C-alpha cells in the first residue's frame, strides 16, 4: 500500500509551500527585532511552536481530507468542549478567561475552534445544491447554530474580537455556498441584529472605551487610544524605506505595547518602510488568492468549501489585523497569520494551511 506521504511528495504544491516559507521567514526576522525588548525566551518559544506547527502541517496534509469530512462533527464537538472547559477552568488574564495553561505555554481554545468551525461548516455546506435548497430553513438553523454557539462561548470569555472573527469567517463560507439566496439573506441579516442586541445589553467598560476612542481618537490620548496612536506613528515614521532593521525606535523604546502579538506589522512597517509593508502585503495577497485557486480546482465540494474556509480565515485575519494597526479598525486582539508571536495562533494557521495543502495535492486524484 502507498504511504499517506506518497501523495504529498508526488503532488506537492510548491508555490503554496514557498509563499508560506517566505512569510514564515520574514515573520521570524521581524520577530527577532520585535522581541529584543520583550521578556526573555519568546523568540525561542516561537521557533519551537514552528517546529510543532510544521509537523502538524505535514501530518494534516498527508491524511486524505475525506477522513476529516467524516470526523468533522467530532472535532467540532471537541473544540466546543474545550471552550466550555476554558470558561470553567481557564487561566484568567486581564479579567478574561481565554487560556489553558501548561507550564509556561498556554493554549487558546478559541483559536483551535476556527478549525473545528471550518471543518463542520464545510461538511454541512458541501451537500448537494438541490439538497441544500430543499432543506431550506432547517439548513439555516443548523449553520447558524454551528457558528453562533462557539461565537457566544468565546464572547463570554469575554473576547469580542475573536467571537466576531469566528462569525465573519463562518458567514463568508455561507455566502459562497450553494444555499438559497433567501437563506443567505436571513443569516447575513442577523449580524446587524446581533450588534444591536449587544449595544442594547451594554458593552463592558473597556469595550465601550475602545469603541469611543476608535470613533474619536482625541477623547483619550494617553489611555485607550495610546496603543492605536503609537502604532500609527510607528508605521508612518517608516516612510519610504524604513528606519532600518533593528532600528525602529517605537519598537525598541517600547512605545508599541505587546507589539510581538498584535502589532508585529507596525514593527515591520517602521523598520522596512512602505517598501517592506507592500512586499508583505503582496505575500498575503498571493497566499489568499492561491487558496482561492485551490478551492476553485478542488476535487470535490467538501474540498472546495474547506479551502474557501481557509482562505476566509487568512483574509479576515490579515485585513482586520492590518486595519487595526493602521488605525482604520478598532483595536481587537486579532493576530497576523505566521507573523504574530503565539503558539495557538501559529498552530491554528499551520493546521489550516495543512488542510489547504491537503486539498491542493488531491486535486487530480480519483
Amino acid at each position, binding site marked *: 500500500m502507498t504511504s499517506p506521504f506518497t501523495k504529498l511528495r508526488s503532488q506537492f504544491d510548491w508555490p503554496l509551500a514557498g509563499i508560506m516559507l517566505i512569510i514564515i521567514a520574514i515573520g521570524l526576522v521581524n520577530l527577532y527585532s520585535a522581541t529584543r525588548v520583550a521578556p526573555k525566551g519568546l523568540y525561542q518559544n516561537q521557533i519551537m511552536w514552528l517546529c510543532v506547527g510544521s509537523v502538524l502541517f505535514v501530518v494534516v496534509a498527508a491524511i486524505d481530507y475525506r477522513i476529516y469530512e467524516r470526523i468533522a462533527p467530532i472535532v467540532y464537538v471537541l473544540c466546543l468542549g474545550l471552550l466550555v472547559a476554558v470558561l470553567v477552568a481557564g487561566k484568567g488574564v486581564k479579567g478574561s478567561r481565554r487560556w489553558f495553561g501548561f507550564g509556561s505555554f498556554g493554549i487558546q481554545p478559541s483559536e483551535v475552534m476556527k478549525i473545528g468551525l471550518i471543518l463542520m461548516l464545510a461538511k454541512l455546506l458541501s451537500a448537494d445544491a438541490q439538497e441544500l435548497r430543499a432543506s431550506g430553513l432547517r439548513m439555516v438553523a443548523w449553520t447558524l447554530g454551528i457558528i453562533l454557539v462557539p461565537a457566544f462561548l468565546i464572547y463570554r470569555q469575554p473576547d469580542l474580537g475573536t467571537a466576531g472573527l469566528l462569525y465573519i469567517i463562518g458567514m463568508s463560507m455561507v455566502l459562497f455556498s450553494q444555499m438559497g439566496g433567501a437563506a443567505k439573506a436571513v443569516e447575513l441579516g442577523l449580524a446587524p441584529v446581533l450588534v444591536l442586541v449587544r449595544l442594547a445589553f451594554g458593552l463592558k467598560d473597556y469595550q465601550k472605551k475602545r469603541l469611543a476612542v476608535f470613533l474619536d481618537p482625541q477623547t483619550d490620548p494617553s489611555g485607550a487610544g495610546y496603543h492605536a496612536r503609537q502604532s500609527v506613528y510607528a508605521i508612518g515614521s517608516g516612510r519610504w524605506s524604513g528606519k532600518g532593521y533593528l532600528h525602529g525606535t517605537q519598537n525598541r*523604546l517600547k512605545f508599541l505595547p505587546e507589539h510581538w502579538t498584535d502589532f508585529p506589522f507596525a514593527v515591520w512597517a517602521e523598520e522596512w518602510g512602505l517598501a517592506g509593508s507592500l512586499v508583505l502585503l503582496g505575500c498575503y495577497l498571493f497566499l489568499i488568492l492561491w487558496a482561492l485557486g485551490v478551492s476553485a480546482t478542488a476535487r470535490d465540494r467538501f474540498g472546495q468549501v474547506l479551502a474557501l474556509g481557509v482562505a476566509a480565515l487568512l483574509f479576515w485575519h490579515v485585513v482586520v489585523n492590518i486595519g487595526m494597526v493602521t488605525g482604520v479598525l478598532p483595536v481587537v486582539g486579532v493576530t497576523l497569520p505566521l507573523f504574530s508571536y503565539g503558539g495557538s495562533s501559529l498552530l491554528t494557521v499551520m493546521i489550516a494551511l495543512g488542510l489547504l495543502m491537503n486539498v491542493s495535492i488531491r486535486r487530480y486524484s480519483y
Partner: protein
Amino acid sequence: MTGPLRSGAAATSDVRLYKRLALVIIAVFLLLGTRLWQLQVIKGDRYYRRTADNFVKEIELPATRGQILDRTGRILVDNRPSYGVYLKPTQMNDAILGRLDRYLGLHDEQSAALRAKIAAARTRKGAERFQEILAFEDITRDQMGALESDAAELSGVTVKAVAHRAYPHGKLAAHALGYMNQITAEELSQLRDQGYGPGDYIGRAGIERQWESYLRGKDGVDRAIQDARGHIKTDLDEREVEDLIGGPRRRDPEPGSNVVLTLDLDLERITEQALSRHHSGAAVVVDVASGKVLALASYPAFDPNVLTGHLTRDEAERLQDDPFRPLIDKAVQENFFPASTFKIIPALVGLEEHFIDAYEKSSCRGAYELPGHAFHCMKSHGPVNLYSALVESCNVYFYRLGEKVGMDRMARMAQDFGFGAPTGIGLPGEAPGFVPTQDFYRKHGGFRIGYSLNTAIGQGSTKVTVIQEALAYAALANGGKLYVPQLVERIESPTGQVVQRFEPRLRRQLDIRPEDLAEVRRGLCGVVNDPKGTSHSAYDPSVAAEVCGKSGTAQIGKNRKGEAAGWDKANDHAWFVGFAPARNPEVAIAVLAEHGGLGGHVAAPTAMAILKGYFNKVKKPAQAALPAGGGTGASPGSGSGRRNDALPTGSTSSMIP
C-alpha cells in the same frame, strides 16, 4: 462516492464567482496599500517627527546669568548656588507629600498648590508624565538636612543644585539694579521663541530688566534617548544617538554678559548712608564731564533678595502698602516741584536776553504786589542783586524777574536744560516731569501773570525729577553740555573681555554765554560758602572741595495732612542741588528729602556728607592710581595742592562778601 466537481452550468457560474471574489480581495488589499501609502508617504515626515518627540528627552542646561559690576569691577549682582526640590509626579503619594509638607514647613495654601501641580503633571501625555517637576526652589540648609535624613522614605524626590540670583549688598542700589522673578504665562506666550520656558526667571526692574537680553545668555541643551517610561537609554553609542536625534546631542549653554555700571560701590554706600537720615528721599551723583551716574539712590529701598525668590503674599502686601513706598525709585520715577533749585532758569534767561544786569539791585520788602494778590518772600531782604538773591534765596527778586522774562522764555530755557522730558537714563518707568507754558494755562482755565511769578521760584505747575536736576546742574557746571545720564559703562564677556563700550552721549550743547553761566555758578557757590547763604549752615571745611549749589523748599498742599511713623507729610520737600569743586567742577549732585523740611537745613547737609565721601574717600585712591590727575583738575600738583585749589580763593564768593 462523492464525484468530481459538477460539470456544466454550475461549474461556469463557480468560475465567475471565484473571479469576482478574487477581484474583491484584490480591491481590499489595494485599500490597505493606499492606507499604508497615506501613512508612510503623505504623512510620513509628520509621524517621523512624532516618534522623535517620543524618544528625545531634552535636558535644559541653564546659562549662567551675567554679573552686574560697579565701575571698578566690584560685584553688585551675582549668582549663588541654591537647592531646589524636584518630584516625579507618578511616584507621589499622600505619605510622601505629608512628609514634604512637614520637612519644608509648607502652609496649607502652598501645600494645596503643590498637590494641584502634581495632579496637573500626571495628566500629561506619554513620557511627559514621568518628567520631574520643580516643587520648591531655594530651600534652606535646615530643610535640605531634613529631606536628606529621610531620603529612604522619599522616593521620587530629588534635591538639585541650581544657580539663584544673589544681591550680596542687599538693599544697596536696589532700584537701579532691580530684581527678578518668574515669567508669567502671558509673557511666556510672547517670548517663547526667544527661548524662555515655564518657570524661567526674568528681570523685573532696573538694570536686570533693561539689560535682560545681555545678562541672560543662551540656555544649552543635552539630548538623550528615552524609552516609553522615561528611562534614559545608556546602551547606545554616540553616533547612534546622534542619528536618532538627527543632530548634535549637546549644545553648551552660552553664559550671559556682565554689565559694568558707572556706579561706584563706595559712593553708592556713602550716598545711601547719608540719605538714610531722612524718612524718605533720593540722591544722584553724576560726573559733570560725561553724564556718568556715580551714585543713584532712593530711600527707603527694598531687598532684591526678598523679591527674587519666594516672596510671600504678606511680604508683598507690606511692601506695596508701605507709606514710604520702597518699591518706587524716587530718583527717576517720581516728579517733584523744583522750588528754588529752579531759580537758575529765570536767572539765565534774564542774563542771556539782557533783561537784567547781574549787579543791578532791586529792592525786597518782603512781598511783591500784583493787583489783587501779594506774593511773599521769606523776609524783607532789602536791596538785592542776582548774587545775593541766589545766596539768600530772595523770592521777590525772582518774582520780578519772572514777570519780566515771562512764562514761555523760562519754559524754553527749562526744556533746554532737559526738564519736561525723560533724560533717557535707561531705567523702566522714568517720569518726564512737566514744564508749563502760557498755552498750557490758557487751556486750563486761563493764564495770569501770577503763574509766571510762581514758576520763577519753582512752584506752580513745574515738576522735575531728581535725575533731571542733577543733569541740569551738571550742564550748568560744565559750560552748557547737557548729557544723557549714563548708567552702563560697558558690556563684558564672562571672561572679562570688553564686548561693547558706551561713550557719553551729549543730549544738547546749550547756547548760553559762558560768562552768564559763570555768573549763576558764582551765586550758587555763595549759597554754601557765603555766611549769608541759605545752605551755609551745611558748610563743612573738611570737605576736600568747594561745594556750590542751591537749596530748595518745595511747598506742598497743606491739605495733604497725614503722618506715618513720625513722618509729617505736611512738611515741605527739601532740595539741594549743586556741583563741586567750584573751579573745574567734577561732579553734580541732587538730593531730595521728601517732606523733609527746609532745603538748606535738611537736604544740604546730606549732600555735603555725600560729597565729603566722594572727595575725601572715594576719589583719593582713584587719584593715587592715576598720578596724572584724572583729567579733571586744571592745575597739576599734589593732593594737598588740589585741596588748596578747591578752597574758596579769589574766584567766586570772596568777590562780593
